[in-house]
């Protein structure tokens, strides 16, 4: 992309929201996308925890990028990310115990989330701090949005509720148990990837014509 050369900060932010939206376009970070999105709140909490870790790791890694020897950079990144993940995990456990319990082992697993290491490798280690912050915010918010959309669909179909509030009376709608099972996660995930691909293929077809 042409705008990339001139460090358009807005572009760095915006690309994570649609063009490079992590689970649907990059197909990265699918493990939490499938595992913890059976409700909107879980998706939001997971997204926020990831956003925090991503922001921290992008800032630190981009700040120290000139002082870390390339041979040991991955090890250094993992140590930094593990530190931030521990902070996020303990914070959730201390202030939001139910959410922490619902997310279970998936918060510690952010350490190996490929979005975070991917952004560190692909972006933060080559770019200054400020664009890295914008990149982290864009990707992190895009990831949170994706998880919330997944959670929205699965919660409304699987429980008939939203934000843990019963919306549809059980007499009108029999919840689809499959949607809160792993199989439902794959169904929703596949459908959403198809929808996103369809919209962007139409978008690019329209821009080709113009």
């Amino acid at each position, binding site marked *: 992309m042409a705008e990339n050369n001139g460090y358009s900060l807005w572009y760095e932010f915006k690309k994570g929201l649609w063009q490079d939206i992590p689970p649907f376009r990059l197909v990265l970070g699918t493990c939490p996308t499938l595992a913890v999105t059976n409700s909107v709140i879980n998706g939001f909490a997971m997204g926020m925890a990831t956003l925090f870790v991503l922001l921290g790791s992008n800032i630190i890694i981009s700040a120290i990028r000139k002082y870390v020897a390339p041979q040991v950079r991955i090890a250094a990144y993992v140590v930094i990310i593990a530190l931030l993940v521990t902070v996020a995990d303990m914070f959730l456990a201390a202030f939001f115990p139910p959410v922490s319990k619902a997310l279970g082992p998936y918060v510690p697993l952010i350490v190996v989330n490929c979005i975070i290491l991917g952004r560190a490798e692909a972006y933060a280690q080559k770019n200054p701090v400020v664009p890295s912050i914008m990149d982290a915010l864009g990707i992190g918010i895009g990831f949170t949005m994706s998880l919330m959309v997944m959670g929205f669909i699965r919660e409304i179909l699987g429980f008939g509720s939203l934000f843990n509030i019963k919306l549809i009376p059980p007499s009108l709608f*029999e919840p689809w*148990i499959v*949607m809160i099972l792993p199989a439902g996660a794959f169904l929703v995930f596949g459908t959403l990837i198809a929808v996103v691909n369809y919209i962007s293929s139409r978008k690019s077809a329209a821009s080709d014509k113009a």
Partner: protein
Amino acid sequence: MEDKTNDKTEVKSAPEAPAGPGGARLFVTSSPHFLNNESVPKIMHTVVLALFPAMAASVYFFGFRALLLYAICIGACLLTEYAFQKYMKRPIKIYDGSAIITGILLAMTLPPGFPVFGAILGSVFAIGVGKQLFGGLGFNIFNPALLGRAFLMATYPVLTTTWVEPRTVQKAVDAVSAATPLALMKFEGKLTPILDLFTGNVAGSLGETSAIAILIGGLFLRYKGYVNWKLPLGYLGSMAIFSGIFWLIDPSKYPDPLFHLFAGGAMLGAWFMVTDMVTSPTTDIGQWIFAITGGIMAVVIRLFGGLPEGVMYSILFMNAFVPLLNKHTRPRVFGAIKAKAE
């Protein structure tokens, strides 16, 4: 010039030749070029005819409710097929009868008291996800009706396993709920008389009841030559032998092979789902492996799994192996010499 070439390809291709995945129209097939008057609609409508005895039996045992479920499933399947083909700009072929079969088979896997919205949902999933998303008839990996049933089972685990006593639905509004012979066997250790299983006077899904009615339909299809005898024979035979081994080891703990053959969906699965032309292997050895392994899987799930019935998952599981079986059991081309492994 452009137009002329297009015309040529149109003439060359057979009238029924489906457009390939990439829209290719020209199909070059190898010899022999036999001509016969079989076509997809003819085969499909014969299968529908073969399903009539089983449908009649289920209507006899479960009354109006069964008829309603058949109508809903067939209607929803046809509508879904039409909607998908129209939207995906494929040729509309809802009259070829394949969606009708999917609808009947799906209804046969449902309990008689199953709610209407669930039946519609299952039909939409079966045709939409199970068939049209893969590319339509001939391209689906899994049997669409079984996929719809599997989806419904995960979606409504309680409703899909709530059965009623036969011949009670029309007498009372709240039919007496009952357990299927397989569930009785698994959870309470009770054996149902073989004669009841054979005629169908037991609780179960619409197509799980009357073994004899399905057998009639299946043998009719065999007579017409639309069923490859290896598939039902391999499936039922391996079920009988494998369950017979356990029965001989401990007859007090494991039911006899006849019970396994006539209870549950074994007959329906063996005659109408294992033999699905699209989702079964094309080679002889592949068909034997497919059918025998499927039968063993079904018995393993019935005897040692968490579910009382394993026919559905055994067939879906084996469906996934069909491309692999087709690839690795390809017969030697006539005249070809095996390459030396040196």
